[in-house]
């Protein structure tokens, strides 16, 4: 698993490559919090390269979403495959997050 993080316009775009699970979720959390600290406010996490996500990966997303909102920022998600969509639906987290089909749509929507 690895994360890549880049700036597109004023949006911080994070690609999650591989699994987002208990063993590595802290790394994602720290990276995003560092950017928030630096003053960034718009965040997009792209899951096109992601394998599976476990409950603690979901927990980190919930936590980041809260922290970003507290600072007046926004977190959006993009490119969930059907299995990941089902995971968000099962846990009703699809109601909590703004989820776009493609990265382009997510970027436009900010």
């Amino acid at each position: 698993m690895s994360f890549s993080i880049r700036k597109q316009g004023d949006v911080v775009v994070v690609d999650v490559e591989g699994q987002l699970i208990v063993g590595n979720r802290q790394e994602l959390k720290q990276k995003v919090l560092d950017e928030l600290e630096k003053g960034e406010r718009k965040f997009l996490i792209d899951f096109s390269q992601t394998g599976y996500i476990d409950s603690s990966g979901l927990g980190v997303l919930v936590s980041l979403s809260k922290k970003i909102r507290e600072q007046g920022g926004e977190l959006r998600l993009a490119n969930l495959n059907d299995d990941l969509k089902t995971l968000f639906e099962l846990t009703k987290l699809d109601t909590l997050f703004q989820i776009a089909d493609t990265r382009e749509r997510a970027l436009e929507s900010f």
Partner: protein
Amino acid sequence: MEHVRLAVELDIPSDVRYIEDIVAMVTRQCAQLSYAPRQLALNVPVALTEALSNAILYGNRERPDRHVHVRAEVDRERLVVEVSDEGTGFDLETSEIDPTSPENLLREDGRGLFLMRRLMDSVERFDDRGNVIRMTLRRS
């Protein structure tokens, strides 16, 4: 090849970094028996990750002298996975919350047992040798 049964059995230290490799091994066995793509990408890896991380974090409290034992048996009918830790066990019914209720939706934890139950056909607990969680999934 109607009557193939594949099995993986192993002991791992109480360290969450082992989870991904075990999940890959068990998923590969299911793939060999043509389990549905969704089961290989969602049900099996997520439920197994939850069971393993609970065993490592709660059962064994990440103590280096404690191990987690995994046994997975797969055939064309079903996958049966047992995850055993050296903890004192817990109550499966009362430990599960509903993470989809409005008051819980914003919680960061509490989705593990819920996902195991949703993604597997059955989740049981035994005290045979330490605390054992057995999950069963019918092939689709």
